[in-house]
């Protein structure tokens, strides 16, 4: 790994450059490495019962009744239905449309929809009870194709300039339609939640989750409790990637309902099959582009139409669509842009957050267009990007004028240079020209570039007003209080690191309070790569205030005086609330202004080998260059880029959900595949630091960045190898063979097939014996 600081002068502030600075080891690493870290399913609560969810198997139906087999001893278990919900029967989110449990008489909108809950003292009884419940339903006509859906969750229309006039004068117009399917987050720890009833009528839940206060709010609304009677505690969490942003609220409500009813702790631990079949995925999308260019490679117009499949309920879809829309043109300064987008309902399980949050879908399409335009114009894909990528002062489709921290060209050049892009591309081109019929394999190289808005979109952060706290406790500890969760990214390491550096004290002297809503303030959800930038920034400000206060009292440097101050003065606590970055404004009504306080920039170069008989793709190497503003911890930061890059490689090549009648067909780990160590390419990471000047520490965030570039880079490399463009993700062997043969690819990704009843051949009576 190398860390590069762009040559352009960016105002450098404290702290000192990252390179060469000793960094601490992962804070909770020893616990994870000795097996003593406690994940939800490792927690023991004596007398706990086991909970299960009865789900619809219809994609769309009216629920007529829930029948309990009279032959089963129902007094041995507890059954909960919508009638037992004390509060609102809604999982609190952006819109109030998703029920906690579908009531009798209500509408079932997807095949994994929760209808009833059962708890039992042991697993065998629970399994048997589940079998004895039957749902009576009246099927309704389902909608599976997002292009045919008339129910719109959200839509946007934005742009600048005169697109039609520019397209009319363009030397070349490149058109394309791109489709991407679902992707599963596939954290290795399944969703899990344990609810404990309290003597005061309240509820405590321990769970695997990203956003303690999302779960907290959902419990208050659904259980009709006040703030003081709901406590949410994050257990060690085995990965999230967006997949534990919203669905944990549903599971916590289910566990809480059963706990209240049984009066016992109730464990809702999903197995992989349930997790895959019921919880959220990355949104499928259909994206149409018309791009106008001049002969010398200047992009002068982009006309983009984007449709996201939201699944059955709104969940976070409007926000995902917003990010997808704003990023849809890619990292290019284009004078005439029109982006029209909508997210629609289908009768499939709701789609939700997954690393990148809409941008990987829309930027895949944008990068496909640029690579295809480069081919059409006979210009190198590297050179075409050089001519169009945003520079400082560039104007985005929301009319945002970019600051000095633009690093698009930097990451592009670093990745191209480190990978030997142009040289290898010449070699693959001559190999392709010399290839004889019967050749077994072909190599190719591909490039992609992306931008990724740092933190929440638009006015989100301003409205949320997050708080992070720092205190010197009565016990003489310096303690960080935030709701930001550790899921492997390194929150528990970089926060103490930032605070210790600011206070000039030892890393070990700073401790983290547990992510427990009875202790920590609401510092917002752990999403949108905002933890390092926003919450980390709040902690740096808090540390500065704490330092000034203590030094003001003692007249001595903080490091030498804080222990004395704690003894003499007692505890000191600083609550730091988010204030908008100066001069930034976004208008939600016109959808114009500063959509993000800053942008991170990413480039990837992928090399592949394609088997020309089977069209299997081996991704051999990916060089990734990512601008993260400031590298706080090189090892953890690099780990984020590597992990995100491999998820993008999986998205590009093998990860696909197939559906039949609205049901996921490959809803087990035997059939939904993710890359193993043998599938993973060699990953090389270059970290670039174009500091975000309005964050006190310069960080922009890293988690989502690599997810935006991997897939288009791999597909460009496949094209370089075989000479055919794959427009749909994943680029499976079937799609590659179809593209080479110039025939229609197999069914569009993400859209459910329908089993027409007339197709089903009834079993024939066997007459073999005759």
């Amino acid at each position: 790994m190398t860390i590069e600081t762009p040559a352009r002068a960016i105002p450098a502030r404290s702290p000192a450059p990252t390179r060469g600075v000793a960094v601490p080891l992962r804070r909770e690493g020893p616990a994870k490495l000795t097996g003593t870290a406690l994940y939800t399913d490792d927690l023991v609560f004596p007398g706990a019962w086991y909970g299960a969810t009865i789900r619809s198997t219809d994609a769309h139906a009216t629920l007529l009744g829930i029948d309990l087999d009279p032959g089963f001893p129902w007094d041995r278990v507890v059954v909960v239905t919508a009638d037992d919900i004390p509060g609102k029967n809604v999982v609190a989110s952006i819109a109030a449309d998703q029920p906690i449990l579908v009531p009798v008489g209500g509408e079932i909108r997807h095949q994994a929809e929760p209808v009833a809950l059962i708890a039992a003292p042991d697993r065998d009884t629970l399994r048997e009870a589940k079998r004895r419940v039957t749902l009576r339903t009246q099927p309704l006509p389902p909608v599976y194709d997002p292009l045919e859906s008339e129910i719109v969750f959200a839509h946007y229309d934005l742009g600048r300039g005169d697109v039609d006039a520019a397209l009319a004068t363009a030397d070349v117009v490149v058109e394309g339609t791109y489709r991407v399917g679902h992707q599963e987050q596939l954290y290795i720890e399944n969703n899990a939640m344990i609810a404990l009833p309290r003597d005061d009528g309240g509820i405590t839940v321990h769970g695997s989750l990203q956003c303690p206060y999302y779960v907290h709010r959902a419990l208050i609304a659904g259980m009709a409790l006040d703030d003081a009677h709901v406590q949410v505690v994050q257990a060690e969490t085995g990965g999230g990637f967006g997949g534990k942003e919203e669905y944990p609220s549903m599971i916590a409500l289910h566990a809480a309902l059963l706990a209240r009813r049984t009066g016992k702790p109730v464990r809702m631990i999903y197995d992989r099959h349930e997790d895959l079949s019921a919880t959220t995925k990355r949104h499928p999308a259909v994206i149409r582009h018309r791009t106008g260019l001049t002969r010398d490679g200047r992009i002068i117009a982009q006309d983009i139409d984007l449709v996201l499949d939201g699944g059955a309920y709104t969940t976070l879809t409007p926000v995902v669509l917003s990010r997808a829309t704003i990023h849809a043109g890619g990292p290019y300064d284009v004078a005439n842009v029109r982006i029209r987008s909508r997210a629609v309902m289908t009768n499939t399980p709701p789609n939700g957050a997954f690393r990148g949050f809409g941008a990987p879908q829309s930027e895949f399409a944008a990068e496909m267009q640029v690579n295809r335009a480069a081919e059409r114009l006979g210009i190198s894909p590297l050179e075409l990007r050089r001519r169009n990528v945003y520079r400082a002062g560039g104007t985005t489709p929301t009319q945002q004028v970019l600051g000095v921290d633009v690093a698009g060209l930097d990451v592009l050049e670093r990745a191209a240079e480190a990978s030997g892009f142009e040289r290898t591309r010449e070699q693959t081109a001559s190999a392709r020209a010399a290839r004889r019929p019967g050749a077994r394999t072909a190599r190719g190289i591909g490039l992609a570039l992306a931008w990724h808005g740092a933190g929440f979109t638009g006015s989100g952060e301003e409205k949320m007003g997050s708080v992070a706290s720092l205190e010197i406790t009565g016990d003489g500890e310096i303690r960080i209080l935030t709701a930001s969760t550790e899921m492997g990214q390194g929150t528990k390491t970089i926060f103490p690191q930032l605070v210790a550096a600011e206070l000039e004290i030892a890393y070990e002297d700073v401790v983290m309070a547990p992510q427990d809503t009875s202790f920590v303030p609401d510092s917002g959800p752990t999403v949108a790569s905002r933890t390092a930038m926003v919450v980390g920034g709040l902690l740096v400000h808090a540390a500065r205030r704490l330092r000034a206060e203590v030094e003001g009292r003692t007249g001595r440097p903080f490091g030498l005086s804080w222990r004395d101050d704690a003894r003499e003065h007692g505890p000191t606590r600083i609550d730091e609330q988010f204030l908008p970055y100066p001069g930034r404004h976004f208008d939600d009504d016109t959808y114009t202004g500063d959509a993000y306080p800053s942008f991170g920039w990413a480039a990837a170069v992928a090399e592949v080998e394609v088997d020309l008989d089977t069209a299997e793709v081996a991704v051999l190497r990916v060089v990734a260059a990512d601008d993260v503003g400031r590298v706080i911890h090189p090892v953890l930061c690099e780990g984020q880029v590597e992990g995100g890059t491999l998820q993008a490689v999986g998205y590009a090549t093998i990860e696909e959900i197939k559906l039949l009648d609205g049901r996921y067909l490959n809803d087990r780990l035997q059939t939904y595949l993710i890359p193993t160590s043998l599938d993973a390419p060699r990953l090389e990471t270059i970290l670039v630091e174009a500091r975000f000047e309005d964050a006190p520490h310069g960080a922009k965030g890293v988690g989502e960045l690599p997810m935006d570039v991997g897939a288009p880079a791999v597909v460009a490399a496949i094209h370089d190898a075989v000479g055919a463009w794959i427009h749909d993700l994943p680029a499976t062997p079937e799609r590659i063979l179809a593209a080479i043969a110039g025939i229609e690819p197999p069914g569009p990704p993400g859209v459910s097939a329908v089993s027409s009843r007339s197709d089903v051949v009834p079993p024939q009576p066997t007459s073999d014996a005759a």
Partner: protein
Amino acid sequence: MTTNLTVNGAPVETEAPGMRRLIDLLREDLGLTGTKEGCGEGECGACTVLLDGAPVLSCLVPVCQVGGTDVRTVEGLTPVAPGGVTLGVLQQAFLETGGAQCGICTPGMLMAGEAFLASGLEPTDDAIREAIAGNLCRCTGYTKIIDAIRLASEREGVRRGAA
């Protein structure tokens, strides 16, 4: 029926039904929750333990097959020093290289890595990838796990060479 085995060097006698899964014996009966369940069908490798030194998936091994065997889990990798728990060579290498992120695949990875170290194979990139091919990780992209196993192998080699 009584089954006798050794777990992390200690004798264990259990009356668990023969078809009880080894992972349940470890996690629920013995309280060794370091071993994780990710899929329950032998695909993810999170539940990997060593059975007489060989990596096996404890979600697929019934108790009736472990009589008389020596089972080793992540808890058994951790040397107990006079001052408390320390990290073994492989664990320390994971910590230094960043081989553990969310940590849920880590116990299984460590056991696969431990089996690789014991094999005495040359720690090439290909050989290490092959050794952990049955263990899924969604966080790291595997690079730093491979680095960790290589580092531990080199350190073990140095230690063996010096001995």
